[in-house]
C-alpha cells in the first residue's frame, strides 16, 4: 500500500471515526524499519554486556582470565570454525532452493542444524570443564554472561532451523517460495557475526 492510496482510502471525511489512517514513509518500508529496530535492540543488548566487559577489564584492570583460571581457547576456536562453516551450509541451502534443488536445501539445513547443535553441546561441555562458575568474580560473571547470551541466540536459531528443516523435508519450499529459509538464514548469519565478536573479545584479545 502506498502513501498515496492511504490518502485516497481515507479522504477528508468528517464522518470518519476510529483511529486515523496509518501512513508511513515510502522511503523506508515497515519491514526494513523493523529490521533496523531489531538490530538496534540487539546492539543495545550485547552493548550492555560488552560495556560491563570493558569496564571490568579496562577500567578495573582485572586480569583476563583471572588466575588461576584458563579459557579453552582452542576448543572455542574449533567451535568457531564449526559455527562459521554452518553459515556456509546455510548459504548453500538457500542457493540450492533458489535453483530448485530440494536435496541441496534439505542437506544444507540439516548440516547447519547439526553443526549448530554441536556448537551448543560443545559450549555446554566446556562450561562444565572450565573450572569456574559465574559466582567466581567479575571475570567469570562476564564470561558466562557474554557467552551465555550468545548461546541463547544460538538456541533460538536452532529452534528456527529445526522448523525450517522439518518444513523442507515436508516439501514446503520451492524456487519461488522460500521466504522462511531466507529469514532464518539472515538470523543465523547474524548469530555467527555476534559470535566472532564475542570470541575475539573474550577469548583472543
Amino acid at each position: 500500500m502506498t502513501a498515496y492510496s492511504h490518502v485516497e482510502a481515507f479522504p477528508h471525511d468528517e464522518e470518519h471515526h476510529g483511529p486515523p489512517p496509518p501512513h508511513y514513509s515510502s522511503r523506508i518500508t515497515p519491514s526494513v524499519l523493523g529490521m533496523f529496530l531489531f538490530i538496534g535492540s540487539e546492539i543495545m543488548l550485547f552493548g550492555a554486556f560488552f560495556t560491563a566487559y570493558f569496564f571490568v577489564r579496562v577500567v578495573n584492570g582485572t586480569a583476563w582470565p583471572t588466575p588461576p583460571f584458563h579459557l579453552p581457547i582452542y576448543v572455542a576456536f574449533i567451535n568457531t570454525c564449526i559455527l562459521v562453516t554452518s553459515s556456509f551450509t546455510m548459504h548453500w541451502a538457500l542457493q540450492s532452493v533458489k535453483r530448485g534443488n530440494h536435496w541441496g536445501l534439505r542437506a544444507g539445513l540439516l548440516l547447519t542444524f547439526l553443526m549448530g547443535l554441536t556448537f551448543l553441546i560443545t559450549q555446554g561441555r566446556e562450561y562444565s570443564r572450565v573450572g569456574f562458575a559465574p559466582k567466581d568474580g567479575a571475570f567469570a560473571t562476564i564470561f558466562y554472561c557474554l557467552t551465555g547470551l550468545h548461546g541463547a541466540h544460538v538456541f533460538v536459531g536452532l529452534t528456527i532451523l529445526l522448523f525450517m528443516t522439518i518444513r523442507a523435508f515436508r516439501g514446503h519450499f520451492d524456487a519461488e517460495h522460500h521466504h522462511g529459509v531466507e529469514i532464518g538464514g539472515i538470523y543465523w548469519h547474524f548469530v555467527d557475526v555476534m559470535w566472532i565478536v564475542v570470541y575475539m573479545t573474550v577469548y583472543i584479545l
Partner: protein
Amino acid sequence: MRNPLRTEAEAFRFLLVVIVGAAAIVACAYANEWLGVAAAVVVVGGIGWWLWRAPAAEPPPPPEPLASPPRQGLRHRILLLAPPGAAAGDTAAALRARVDGRDAEVLVVVPALATPAEAITGAVDERRDEAQRAADALAAELRGAGVDARGAVGADEPLLAAEDALREFGADEVVLAGDEELLVSARERLAVPVSLLG
C-alpha cells in the same frame, strides 16, 4: 545505506567481511598490541564505511502498467506534480494556458517532503498537512479557472509520489511544476510523457 540484514545473501556477505576484518585485527594484535588497536579502528571504520556506502545504482525498474490506460478521444488527464511551496496562482494560470480549452481532468499531487529524520521516525504529520494545503489550494485555483481538478498528498519522494498516483490515475501526461532537475529522472522512471510547466 546498506542494510546487512536485508537478504540472506547480504547477511552472508557481511559475515565474510566481518571474518576478514577479525582475522586482520587478530593478526595485527599478535604482532603488536597497538598495531592491533589501530587495525581494529581501521576495520571498524572500514566496515562502517562499507555499510554507509550505497550499493551500486541499479537500472530503474520497468514501469508498472497503469491501472487505467490513457484514453484517446476522451478527457485529457493530467497529473500535476507540484512542490509544497509552489505558487498556486501562477501554477494554475500556467496549467490553464496549457489545457487551452480542452476537456481536461487534473490530479494535483504534492509530495510530503520530509527530512531523513522525519521520514525514519514517521514524524511527517506536519509535512503531510502542509502538502495537503498546497494541493487543495492549487486544485481550488484550477477549479476557479474552469478546470476539473482535485488535490492529493504524495509520498515523501516526488517521483515515488508520481508513480503511486499513476497507479490509480491513468494520466495522459505528467506535468512538473518548477523543478527542472527532476525532469530527466522523471522521464526515465515514468511511463507517460513528462514535461515542465511554463
